[in-house]
């Protein structure tokens, strides 16, 4: 690894840590969400510098969408109106300390216990291809199962969350067209 990459790695790592600490010290929900986003963007940068450009950029892509949607829900459904009152982000302090301490120790132990290969000699030419190959060849069954479980969870959660059923929408004989929806859609069903 060259000097530039090492410097980048250190800078991004420190920035990720700083933003991570800010998540627990700031007192505005919007600022907390976006410092978490900044920390995750730095993690995406670290991943890219470590030679996994696809995963790095995808982390940035997914995390921006995820954090923005999270900001919307967090602020829309807060206990105080719109989350505008200053509030602490710390809950269950003792339990959280224990859990994060154990996870941190396990990760650090992992650094020393995993038999890392001499990566310089074995660095694959195209890591994006390797990732795709791993997901779509060896782990195909895992990915297909995972996909269906995720989709089923989303559909089930939506079904459980909505109190309106098809009889509300289409009438007692399911023949009411267009459907009686509280908000009209663009397709005119």
């Amino acid at each position, binding site marked *: 690894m060259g000097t530039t990459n090492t410097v980048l790695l250190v800078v991004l790592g420190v920035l990720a840590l700083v933003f991570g600490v800010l998540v627990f010290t700031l007192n*505005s929900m*919007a*600022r907390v969400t*976006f410092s978490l*986003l900044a920390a995750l963007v730095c993690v995406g940068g670290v991943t890219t510098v470590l030679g996994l*450009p*696809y995963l790095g*950029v*995808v982390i*940035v*892509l997914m995390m*921006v*969408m995820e*954090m*923005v*949607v999270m*900001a*919307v829900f967090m602020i829309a459904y807060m206990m105080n109106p719109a989350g*505008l009152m200053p509030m602490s982000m710390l809950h269950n302090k003792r339990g959280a300390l224990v859990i994060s301490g154990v996870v941190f120790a396990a990760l650090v132990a992992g650094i020393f216990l995993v038999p890392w290969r001499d990566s310089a000699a074995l660095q694959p030419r*195209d890591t*994006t291809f390797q990732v795709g190959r791993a997901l779509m060849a060896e782990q195909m069954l895992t990915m297909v199962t995972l996909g269906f479980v995720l989709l089923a969870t989303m559909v089930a959660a939506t079904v459980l969350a909505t109190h309106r059923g098809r009889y509300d929408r289409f009438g007692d004989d399911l023949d009411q067209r267009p459907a009686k929806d509280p*908000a*009209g*859609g*663009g*397709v005119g*069903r």
Partner: protein
Amino acid sequence: MVEAGAWWTLLAAPGLLLGFAVLAVAGDAVLDARSAGRPVSLATAVRPFLGVPRALVAQPRRMPAPDRLLWRTGVITVPVAAVLSTLVIPFGNHAVADLSVGVVWFNAMEVLTWAGLWLAGWGPNAAFSLIGGYRFLAQGLAYELPLMFALISTATGAESLRVGDIAAAQHGLWYAVWMPVAFAAYLAGVLAFSFLGPFAYPVGRDLAGGVLGETSGVDRLLLQAGRWLWLASGSAMAVPLFLGGGAGPGLPASVWSLVKTLLVLGLLVWVLRRLPMIRADRYVEFAWVVLIPLTIVQVLVPAVVNLNR
């Protein structure tokens, strides 16, 4: 073959992008004047830019208790993300950085606009601008997936995420010809992430300007510039993705890139005033019920073609 450019392309790319954006704004002003029946002259095209020096010296409007840090971050993010997205767009045979994951990079920069615009709406501590920010997210949930599938179609066709490879893989037959659904979804996506024309819902007049409502001076200028820079960037990206990049008979590759980009940009500017503004809730249903299935089938086409090759 596309190659990474010299250091000066780092300056040339944003300059070129700004040039395209300026042309788009001028073209928009001319079309505005024509549809309003006013005489069209050079002054008509220049008029929108008279506001630039005025905006630079304008006194900023202050709101009670704004979140100034997040507001500024959001306002700056929109144009900066548009400029960063151009790093991977090849112009002729040169890109600033021919990343191996260029398509994903472009997509990631475009998604940064979500964060930017929501922050720009949240920052001023005003209801209408916040609603404008929420509107952009609702619109984002509608346009993003069809746009992603459109990008995936081209990457699948070329079997590469490198934008240069995608342009090169179209020798003879443009992706716009045999992936028309992806092309249409992509162009709609460009209008949507520029929040212009039919997708101007986040800055709607019914919302007193929405996200733009509370901004003034340089902030407003940056946000407005961001929209037109995004329109220009999206048009430039359409060329390597769907229109064969710089390939063409007779002329050098960079000239073909220029001509094709201007054509796409002209088409988009013309479309801006041809379509009514779409409410996000209506577009969400259309996107999820019609566009996503269509674009998934569209992805299947290059996949099957490649398997049979």
